[in-house]
């Protein structure tokens, strides 16, 4: 959904109205907004702050504290690579290098075709079967360089199909 449209403001308000009565509502609201738009658009901050009787700075402070929340639009797919020890013990450092080289980006960057955004993650809880990556909500285990290339190819194909 385009986050700057009139429609998006309605959607943001709907999410706020649905959740603001919960105790400690801020994280649930931020999760829902990110779920709807893929990130937390700047125009969401004021209405969230207002409904929770907080300042925009406080809301922004919470967003920036958590790695999971993003304030810029990502590529079509978010790929997270586990950097933690159990994956390191199974060769994730070499995989990381391959991923960055083959996509030609570093962490927190998006490929030129806007297809893939690359992020680090610290443990996906699949520590017997590393190295692990997460693509959207799918966790993929025992990722070799070849397997990663195949995953990326499939992502590129599906992105074209959507168009």
């Amino acid at each position: 959904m385009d986050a700057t449209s009139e429609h998006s403001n309605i959607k943001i308000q709907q999410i706020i109205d649905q959740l603001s009565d919960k105790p400690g509502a801020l994280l649930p609201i931020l999760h829902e907004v990110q779920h709807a738009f893929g990130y937390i658009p700047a125009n969401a901050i004021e209405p969230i702050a207002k409904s929770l009787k907080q300042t925009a700075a406080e809301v922004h402070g919470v967003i920036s504290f958590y790695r999971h929340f993003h304030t810029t639009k990502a590529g079509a797919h978010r790929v997270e690579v586990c950097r933690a020890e159990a994956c390191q013990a199974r060769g994730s450092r070499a995989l990381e290098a391959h991923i960055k080289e083959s996509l030609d980006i570093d962490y927190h960057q998006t490929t030129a075709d806007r297809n893939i955004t690359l992020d680090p993650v610290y443990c996906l809880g699949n520590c017997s079967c590393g190295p692990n990556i997460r693509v959207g909500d799918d966790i993929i285990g025992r990722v070799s360089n070849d397997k990663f290339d195949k995953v990326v190819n499939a992502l590129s194909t599906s992105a074209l199909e959507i168009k």
Partner: protein
Amino acid sequence: MTTTVYVPRDTTTLSLDGNQVASDISALANQQDKSIKLVRNGSRGMFWLEPLVEVETDKGRVAYGPVQPEDVESLFAADFTNASFDAHSTQQHALFLGLTEEIPYLKKQQRLSFAKAGVIDPTDLDDYIAHDGFKGLAKALQLEPQGIVDEVSASGLRGRGGAAFPTGIKWQTVLNCPPQQKYIVCNADEGDSGTFADRLLMEADPLALIEGMTIAGLAVGATQGYIYLRSEYPQAHIILNEAIARAYDRNFLGDAICGSSKTFHMEVRLGAGAYICGEETSLLESLEGKRGLVRAKPPLPAIEGLFGQPTIVNNVLSFGAVPHILADGGEVYASYGMGRSKGTLPFQIAGNVNRGGLVELAFGTTLSALLEEFAQGTANGRDMHSIQVGGPLGAYLTKDQWDTPLEYESFAAIGAVLGHGGIVVFDDTVDLAEQAQFSMEFCVEESCGKCTPCRIGSVRGTEVIGKIRSGENVDANLALLDDLCETMIDMSLCAMGGMTPFPVQSAMKAYQAQLGSQTQLSDQNPSVEGR
């Protein structure tokens, strides 16, 4: 005749094409007019065999694994739904493993908390009840609150999140607070690398967690529970929500639980990728909708916890042990284990191992025994060199330490921690100075920033180890690093800064030993360059 076929739906299975296997089996059964009932169970925790496909027979369930989508056709060709038990039969499919419960990896375990994992359909209440589910709750509903707490105290259960604080004392503290709004909070922010026991329980037997939290609510007079789940566990999120909804439908949650006068509500709240939120006070801040900054203690969360109210904060596995404790009695649970470490711990064998997975055993076994009986070598065939136990804040242990009994006090005595039971194996190519530096980097990344030793100390620590690694004033920088570690241990507000030195110092010590042996080697053999 309809045959029941099981394909797990846990994260590990799905990460290895489990959904494809399940849908291929359905499709082929349809095509061949075979009547099967496909159950998506949880994993049994033998991750090296996932996707593990099981088939119900009159002698029990038989297993095939690891099954990949390309194996499905051959399974049907071998008529896998009519398994023969003759292990020597030449007709048998190559992936046939015999009766699941007879697989040594599973048979050698002492499963209490994970008894139902992989056995039942995780969100099917009837299946749960048929396997002794809700017996603990039924017992709790007959007891006074003090009676429930006494049972938990008698079990000797200690917090399974890592801190190992006696659960009974925590519950007693909350019970002793005058009646008011109290909360039950489950710490499901399992951020330690090398751990997945919480995830496995939530994905394979979520109703056990729900039952344990409900019992806690009855014990202290709390009517609201929250499961604080890390956002890195999307599959656990789906399964937990499904299980909670079904428990509400059948009145195991909500008002008038099971026809009693008791009320307990529960919901899942998602974290957002902050390791520090596994620290209980930071978790509470996060639940309240704030930055996850650590609080100074006292006040204890048991007295002033969530929204300033008395709160039990326990790990998934602590709550998960409670139904068994209530159903069979605290004394039975306490009969397992050694010393002050009572009961069982699910050890999580991870990293570079051949057979990784979850192994629930009584406290007191050793790393050597676990590795020999279960892990069976490294995945790449190299020698095991060092093992990080207890997550990213746990020490790296070298071979001379692998016979230490796996229980809290013995580990503390060697400057190590058992933590949440994660065991990460590294082979002999590990660069321990690099690992030490990573531990500091991780602290930089994850520090909440509230106290200086953690926030600044970790940055300086990363730099100093960098200098040591590049050979710059090595002795002086090693002394500086020691000094820095001492400051972090003594002055940090919580375990993040206070325990980061554990992996750092143990890894640096092992690194120097490695260097020493390499130097000796180069003295003996001039053709090998000293580093």
